[in-house]
C-alpha cells in the first residue's frame, strides 16, 4: 500500500511525523504536570514513540530527509534540525524502546510528578540529539538529555546509594560533555562555523593535528556516554537505580546516542579519521564486549546484570563502528558500509531486546520485590507471559538464530572477516581485525552462558524464597509492552534481509559510496546464488520452525507423563539444592580468575563440641579491577591531596594577604 504512495507525499509525511512526535512528547510532559490528566501522559508518550519509529522507518526506507530550523538567539541557532537516514536508524531504536517502555507504565502513577514530567522531556531531548545539525543545538539537546536522565536517576527522595550512583553519573556525563564541547570548539575554531554541514565541506582545510585532537576528544565524550569499557563505571550503578521503564530507555536508547554521535561526527561529518582512531574504537569495542559480559556473568542482581550487558552490546556495536572507520580510512569504503550497517542494525536490535529484558526485570521486581537472582526461581509458573517474553529476549541477546541479535552479529563477523581479508589495509591492522573475531566469538558464547543463568535461575526450577513463590503475573500494559518487543525481536530476525539491506543503503550514503551493489556478504530472506557468504534469515527461520514442529510431534508420547520428584540422591528435593546464580557462574569465575580476581569467604559455625555445622556463611565477590584498582585509589589520592591543600586555608586574614603579596611578587618576577 505504501509503495503505491507518491514519493513526494512520503517525503512530506516525514516532517509531519516529526512535528507529531514532538507534540506527543510535549503533551505527555504537560499532562503529567496536571494531576487530573496525568494518567494520559504514558499514553501520549507511547504515541510519540510509535510516531518516532514510523518516522525512522520512513527515513531509513525512503532515504529522505527532514529539516527544520528555528529562530536565532544571540547569533546562535538553537533549533537546527536535520534528520537523515542515519538519524532514522536511531529513531527506530528510540521509537521501539520508548513506545514499549511508556506503554508498560500506562495506568501507573509515577514515583513523583517531577518524574512524570521529566520522562517525556527526556525522550524529547533524545529526539533532538538525533536531529541536531549544528554544534550548539547538539550540545543543548545533549546536556538536556544528561540532566533530565539524572533527574530520573535521582528521583525525589534518593537514598544514599542512589545519591552516590547519581553523583557519579552526573560527574561522568559532564566529563563527556566537556570533552565533546572542547572537541567541537576546536572544529568551530578551525572552520569558523558551528554547522555540521559546513564542517564537512571544510574538512580538507583543517590541520590534521586539530582534526585528530577534535576526533579524539569527541571519541572520549561519546564513548563515556555509550559506556565503553574504561569509561563505563557510571553505567552499572546508575541504570539499575532508575525505575525499570527508565532503565530500559537509558540502556536501550540513551547510551546509543554516544554511538550516534561517534558515527555522525567521526564517519559522516569528518569523513573518517586516521586509522589509529578506527583501531582505537575497534579495541574499545573488543574490550568492552568481553569485559562487559564477564562482569555481567558475575552479577546476581538482575538489573545490574542487564546493565553490564549493555556494556557488552555497546562493545559489539563499537566493533562494527571501529571496523567501519578503519576501512574508511584506507578507502575500502564498500566494506566500511557493511561494517557500519552491522553497527546500526545491532543498535536497533539491542534497543528491542534490552528494553524487553529491562521491562521483564521490572515485572519481576514488581511481582516479588526482589532483584537478587539467588532468591528468585520458578517464576515461569506464576508469570508465564513474562517468562516467555524474557526468554525470547534472552535468546535474541545471546545471538541465536533466527532472532534479530544473530543477524546483526553475523554482519559484524562478516565485516571483521572482510577487514581481515582486504588488501587495502596493512597486515597488522588485518591481524587486529582477525583477532577481534575471536573476541567476538568469546563474547557471544559467554552471553549464552549469562542468559541461560539469568533466565534459568529467575524463571525455572523451584522458588528460592517465599516472595518468589507468591509472585503474580505482570500487569496488562506491561505484558502488552513485552509482547510488542518480543514480536519485534522475532520480526527483525525473520525480516533481517530487508532490514539489513535498507540499513546498508543508509550506511552507503553516510560513507558516500556507490549504491550499486558490490558483492558483499549479505543477510537475505531466501537462498542466494553465487559464492558470497550469506545468511538466509527467513528461510532458516522457517526451516527451524518446521523442524521443531516436526520433532516435537514425533517426540510427544502417546502415554501421559508420570509426575515424580527430581532425583536428589534419595532425599526430598529442596529449593536450596539448586544451583544459584553465584554457583552457576563459578566455572567461568575460576576460568577467568586472573581478570576477575575473585575472593571468597566461608564461615562455618559448629554445634558446641561436635563437627556438625550449625550455620555456614558463604560470601563470594569479584574485584572490579578498574573501580577497585584504578579509580578507587585515584579518588582516595585526590581526597588526600585536597585535605593537604586545606592546610593552606588558615582562616587568618594576614595569611591571605601574605599569599596575595607572594603572588604579586612572583608575577612581577616572571613579567620582568
Amino acid at each position, binding site marked *: 500500500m505504501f509503495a503505491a504512495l507518491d514519493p513526494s507525499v512520503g517525503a512530506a509525511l516525514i516532517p509531519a511525523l516529526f512535528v507529531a512526535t514532538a507534540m506527543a512528547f510535549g503533551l505527555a510532559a504537560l499532562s503529567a504536570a496536571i494531576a487530573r490528566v496525568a494518567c494520559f501522559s504514558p499514553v501520549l508518550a507511547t504515541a510519540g514513540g510509535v510516531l518516532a519509529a514510523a518516522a525512522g522507518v520512513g527515513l531509513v526506507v525512503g532515504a529522505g530527509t527532514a529539516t527544520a530550523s528555528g529562530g536565532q538567539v544571540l547569533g546562535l541557532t538553537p533549533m537546527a534540525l536535520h534528520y537523515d537516514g542515519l538519524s532514522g536508524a536511531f529513531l527506530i531504536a528510540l521509537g521501539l524502546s520508548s513506545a514499549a517502555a511508556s506503554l508498560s507504565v500506562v495506568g501507573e502513577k509515577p514515583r513523583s510528578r517531577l518524574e512524570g514530567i521529566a520522562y517525556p522531556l527526556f525522550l524529547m531531548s533524545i529526539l533532538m540529539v538525533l536531529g541536531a545539525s549544528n554544534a550548539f543545538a547538539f550540545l543543548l539537546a545533549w546536556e538536556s538529555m544528561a540532566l533530565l536522565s539524572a533527574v530520573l536517576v535521582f528521583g525525589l527522595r534518593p537514598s544514599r546509594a542512589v545519591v552516590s550512583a547519581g553523583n557519579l553519573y552526573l560527574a561522568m556525563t559532564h566529563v563527556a560533555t566537556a570533552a565533546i564541547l572542547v572537541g567541537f570548539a576546536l572544529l568551530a575554531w578551525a572552520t569558523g562555523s558551528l554547522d555540521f554541514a559546513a564542517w564537512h565541506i571544510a574538512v580538507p582545510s583543517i590541520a590534521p593535528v586539530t582534526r585528530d585532537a577534535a576526533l579524539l576528544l569527541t571519541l572520549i565524550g561519546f564513548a563515556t556516554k555509550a559506556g565503553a569499557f574504561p569509561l563505563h563505571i557510571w553505567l552499572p550503578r546508575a541504570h539499575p537505580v532508575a525505575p525499570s521503564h527508565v532503565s530500559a530507555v537509558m540502556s536501550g536508547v540513551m547510551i546509543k546516542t554516544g554511538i550516534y554521535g561517534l558515527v555522525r561526527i567521526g564517519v559522516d561529518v569528518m569523513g573518517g579519521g586516521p586509522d589509529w582512531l578506527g583501531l582505537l574504537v575497534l579495541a574499545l569495542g573488543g574490550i568492552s564486549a568481553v569485559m562487559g559480559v564477564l562482569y555481567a556473568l558475575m552479577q546476581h542482581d538482575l538489573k545490574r546484570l542487564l546493565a553490564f550487558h549493555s556494556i557488552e552490546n555497546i562493545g559489539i556495536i563499537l566493533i562494527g563502528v571501529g571496523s567501519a572507520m578503519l576501512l574508511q580510512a584506507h578507502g575500502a569504503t564498500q566494506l566500511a558500509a557493511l561494517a557500519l550497517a552491522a553497527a546500526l542494525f545491532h543498535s536497533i536490535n539491542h534497543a528491542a531486546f534490552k528494553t524487553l529484558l529491562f521491562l521483564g526485570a521490572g515485572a519481576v521486581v514488581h511481582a516479588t520485590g526482589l532483584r537478587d537472582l539467588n532468591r528468585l526461581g520458578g517464576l515461569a509458573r506464576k508469570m508465564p507471559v513474562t517468562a516467555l517474553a524474557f526468554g525470547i529476549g534472552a535468546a535474541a541477546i545471546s545471538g541465536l538464530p533466527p532472532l534479530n541479535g544473530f543477524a546483526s552479529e553475523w554482519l559484524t563477523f562478516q565485516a571483521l572477516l572482510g577487514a*581481515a581479508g582486504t588488501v587495502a589495509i596493512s597486515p597488522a591492522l588485518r*591481524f587486529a581485525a*582477525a583477532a577481534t573475531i575471536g573476541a567476538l566469538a568469546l563474547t557471544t*558464547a559467554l552471553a549464552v552462558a549469562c542468559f541461560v*543463568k539469568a533466565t*534459568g535461575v529467575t524463571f525455572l526450577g523451584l522458588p528460592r524464597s517465599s516472595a518468589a513463590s507468591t509472585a503474580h503475573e505482570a500487569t496488562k500494559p506491561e505484558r502488552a509492552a513485552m509482547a510488542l518487543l518480543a514480536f519485534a525481536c522475532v520480526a527483525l530476525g525473520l525480516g533481517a534481509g530487508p532490514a539489513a539491506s535498507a540499513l546498508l543503503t543508509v550506511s552507503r550514503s553516510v560513507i558516500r559510496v556507490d549504491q550499486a551493489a558490490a558483492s558483499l556478504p549479505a543477510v537475505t530472506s531466501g537462498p542466494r546464488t553465487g559464492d558470497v557468504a550469506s545468511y538466509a534469515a527467513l528461510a532458516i527461520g522457517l526451516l527451524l520452525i518446521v523442524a521443531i514442529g516436526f520433532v516435537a510431534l514425533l517426540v510427544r508420547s502417546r*502415554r501421559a507423563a508420570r509426575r515424580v520428584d*527430581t532425583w536428589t540422591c534419595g532425599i526430598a528435593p529442596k529449593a536450596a539444592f*539448586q*544451583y544459584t546464580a553465584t554457583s552457576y557462574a563459578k566455572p567461568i569465575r575460576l576460568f577467568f580468575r586472573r581478570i576477575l580476581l575473585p575472593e571468597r569467604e566461608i564461615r562455618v559455625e559448629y554445634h558446641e563440641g561436635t563437627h556438625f555445622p550449625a550455620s555456614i556463611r558463604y560470601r563470594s565477590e569479584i574485584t572490579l579491577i578498574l573501580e577497585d584498582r584504578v579509580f578507587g585509589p585515584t579518588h582516595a589520592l585526590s581526597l588526600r591531596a585536597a585535605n593537604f591543600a586545606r592546610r593552606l586555608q588558615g582562616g587568618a586574614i594576614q595569611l591571605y594577604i601574605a599569599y596575595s603579596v607572594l603572588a604579586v611578587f612572583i608575577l612581577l618576577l616572571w613579567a620582568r
Partner: protein
Amino acid sequence: MNMLDVTTGATAVAMAAIQLVIFVAFAPLLTATIRRTKARLQSRRGPGLLQPYRDLAKWWGKAPLESNASGPVARHAPAVVLACILAAGLLVPFAAGRAPLGAWGDLFVVVGLLAAARFALALAALDTGSAFGGMGSSRDVAISALAEPGLVLALAGVALAAGSSDLGVMSMFGLSQGIGLLGPAHLLAAAAFAIVIVAETGHQPVDNPDTHLELTMVHEGMLLEASGRSLATLVFASEFKLVVLATVFSAAFLPFGAATEFAPAPILLGLVVGLVKLFVVGQVLALLDGSVAKMRILGLPDLLGLASLLALTGLAMQVLLP
C-alpha cells in the same frame, strides 16, 4: 556441470533429504564404533555395534517421567535441541563440495545453530531444579565459551584463504588446492579445531561420555532428569552433533574425496569417502578416550586456550606473512 551451483530448488531438497537420512542412520553407528574401540583398548569386549540403536528404541517405547519442578521448557527443549542440530547438518558439505542447503547459511550460521541447541539444553537442565542439572549446565556453557574462540578462529582462517565464509566455497577451495592446502597455517587451524571437537562433543580429556559419577558429569548431568522419548531425542542429538562437527572438520580442513561435479559416480564416491572420514575422526576420539585421563576442570582454560592460540597463530601467519 562444473561447480555445484545447481543446488537450488528440487535438487537441493533431494540432496538435503539424502544427507539427512544418511546422517540420521549413521550417527548412532559412529558412537557405537567409538565405544567398541574404547572397550577394546580397555581389554573389554564391549557392546555390539547395534547397541546405541537398541538404547534409542528402548527409551522411545518407555513412558515419560516428568519432574514435579519442571514445566514446558524441559518438555519442549529436546525438540528445539534436535531441530537446531539437524538444521546445522544440512548446511555442511558432506558427499560433495557443496552443502545441500549451503545457499542458506555459512559457517557462522552453523555455529549459531549449535549455540541455539546448547542454549535450549542448558536451560532445560535448570528447569528440573536438580543440582546435577545445574552442575552440568553451568559447566557445559563455560566449556563451550572457552571453546568458541578456537572454533570460530580456526574456521575463519580457512574462510580467509578461500575468500568466503560459505562452507561450500571453503570446501571447493580446499579441493582446488589439492595437497598444497595443507600449509602450516592450515594445519595449525586444523589442530585447533580438533581440540574444539573433543571439548564440544564431550570426550576425554574434557568430559567422559560414559561417566555417571555425579560430581564429574558435564553433558550427562544435563540429561539426568530426561526420560523416555525426551532422553532418546537428546542422546540422539548429541550423537548427531558429533557427526555435524566431524563433517565440518572434514569439509573445511580435509575436503579431499568430495565430489566437485554433480554426477552419480563422484557423489557416490564422495559419500563413501565422507563416511570413512567420519569413522577415522571417531577412532581418534576413541583413542583419546581410551588413553588420556580426564583433566581437572581448572586445567581446561589451558587446553582450550591453546586451541584459540593455535588458530590465532595460523591467522597471523596467513595475514602477516605474505
